[in-house]
């Protein structure tokens, strides 16, 4: 596995974060969700076609927790600074869940360095009548991860990875940062919907048809507000298609990016 990606530490101003990189091609930045950063099989698959860059957000794992980190907006500005510092352009920006929320907050601020945006079961909007079936902050860690999946049996690997007692401190650090970012307002930004029209890059929404945290109505709300956004629904899939249905997820992303390139 070690040869598949490299790990480095990059600093933007006073904040050092861990960056995983693998593959070659057009740049694809993957923003991870609340459970933390890991080089997972779907990233490896993507690395066969793209230069995959997977940062570990400030406040997570081995990355610093800077004093200035209070809200999701702080992370959006941080990543705009990071893109500039790394001189990255024509980025295909992809985010799942919390990572999708951050990606959206980035895109409404500036799409200057983006080639495309992909939101996968993203947080960010409040959709009346489509509230999460579980409160991820009030159920046990294991129940939370199981609820991510359409088939709870597929949760085992993720449970083993995220809840490994050896990594308890990381899990607690990650959770504290997640609370900072999405506890209140719960997993959404009441001002985000007003500005989704500013997203002027091709946008793909990939959603599990059985997401128990951000049900399909959230995808439809994004689709309605982001000009030209395309929605791909993955059947028999929960909140983390990239983990539960990696082939379908990668295929959907590939098709979208290939069509976009052809059109360009």
């Amino acid at each position, binding site marked *: 596995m070690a040869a598949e990606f490299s790990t480095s530490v990059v600093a933007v101003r006073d904040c050092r974060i861990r960056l995983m990189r693998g593959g070659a091609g057009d740049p694809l930045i993957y923003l991870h969700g609340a459970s933390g950063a890991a080089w997972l099989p779907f990233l490896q698959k993507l690395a066969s076609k793209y230069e995959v860059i997977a940062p570990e957000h400030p406040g997570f794992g081995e990355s610093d927790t800077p004093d200035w980190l209070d809200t999701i907006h702080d992370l959006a500005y941080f990543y705009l600074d990071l893109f500039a510092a790394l001189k990255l352009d024509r980025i295909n920006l992809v985010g799942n869940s919390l990572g999708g929320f951050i990606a959206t907050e980035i895109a409404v601020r500036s799409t200057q360095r983006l080639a495309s945006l992909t939101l996968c079961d993203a947080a960010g909007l409040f959709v009346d009548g489509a509230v999460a079936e579980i409160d991820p*902050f009030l159920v046990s860690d294991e129940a939370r991860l199981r609820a991510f999946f359409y088939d709870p049996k597929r949760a085992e690997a993720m449970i083993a990875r995220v809840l490994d007692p050896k990594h308890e401190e990381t899990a*607690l650090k990650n*959770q504290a940062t997640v*609370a900072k970012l999405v*506890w*209140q307002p719960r997993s959404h930004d009441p001002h985000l919907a007003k500005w989704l029209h500013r997203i002027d890059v091709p946008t793909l929404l990939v959603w599990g048809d059985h997401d128990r945290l951000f049900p399909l109505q959230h995808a439809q709300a994004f689709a309605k507000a982001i000009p030209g956004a395309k929605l791909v629904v993955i059947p028999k899939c929960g909140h983390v298609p990239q983990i539960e249905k990696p082939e379908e997820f990668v295929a959907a992303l590939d098709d979208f990016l290939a069509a976009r390139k052809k059109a360009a």
Partner: protein
Amino acid sequence: MRFFNFHLMPYAHADLDEIGRLGSAWVTYPNSHYDPEKGAELYHDYLDQMEFADQLGFDGVCLNEHHQTAYGLMPIPGVIAGALARGVKRAKIAILGRALPLTNNPLNVAEEYAMLDNLTRGRLIAGFVRGIGAEYHSSGVNPAASQERFAEAHDLIVRAWTKPGPFAFAGKHYQFRYVNPWPRPYQSPHPPIWIPSQGSSSTIRWAARMRYTYCQTLSPIAAVARFFQLYRDEAEKAGYEATPDQLAWSNTIYVGETDKKALREARPHLEALVNYFLKMPMQMLLPPGYTDVASMKRVRAVKVTGKTQSIEELMAAGVVIVGGPETVRQKLAEYQDLAGFNTSLTKTQFGTLPNEMARANMTAIAEEIIPRLRDRAPQRAPKQAAE
């Protein structure tokens, strides 16, 4: 020793089986289980108990703030304090305390406490707490901002009480163009500030440095002794010697005719308190960011929330004192010497304990315990005792 009658005002008619099934009486226990007729009756019984405490010679009565729970029916403790301000004629009224981070306008707390201090002509004790973890679920306030909000709200309230207004305040969480609350507190410079905590070392250190009275909630007496020693050590570092008056132990006492009778009478009500009213899953008790990762790890390792405890275990650990008058006197004196406190914050009603039994307990404490221990101070050097 000073004696305060501490009431939680539990909804004693709660459906314990349902609480057991749901895992908690907090946050998600449906309020359809609250019967207003029965609830109103309880409020009046409890208010009467507090006035009775005053008549019996308790030094003070204590209230506190909890939200969305059958554990305690005082989401707005100022309402209860207001109802007591004229009926409780002599005793102090201590609110232990208002949960500062939960409010979006700390000046409301400054105003409420100042009003109560005026109404009681200076008998208010102003408690400040962060609120327990469950409160962050029920209020929606971000637990990761809890410590910052507490510190900022505290500073704002004390400044509002002591610095002539109007002045402007611009913090990270609270901003005001005009800080100029009317009325000002009756006591000068402000009501005594008491800080209850479950034993967070950073809170203990801060309270000691500020010379605020520290109140230890529901803990085994050996842990209480360690926490109080930390307070005294920290006071020493700050250049003064803490007195036993600065340390208050929050306990539950039940006095019966004999040890055996007391145990039998208290058992179901005390076990209802700890095994039903107090119970909550770890995620509810410790939302992420509520405390630092190291403390979080420590509490999770102990798995405090899961255990069912018997009255015998609670007595053996020195969390509660139950017995005939002589036993209770001996235990309380022993614990006073061990931990070095001079204030007992005593729950005389607990869990499902009915009104008549609570009043009999209060009477027994007032007649058999208080007169014999009132002039008692910690006997041994507390430092030595804690080792």
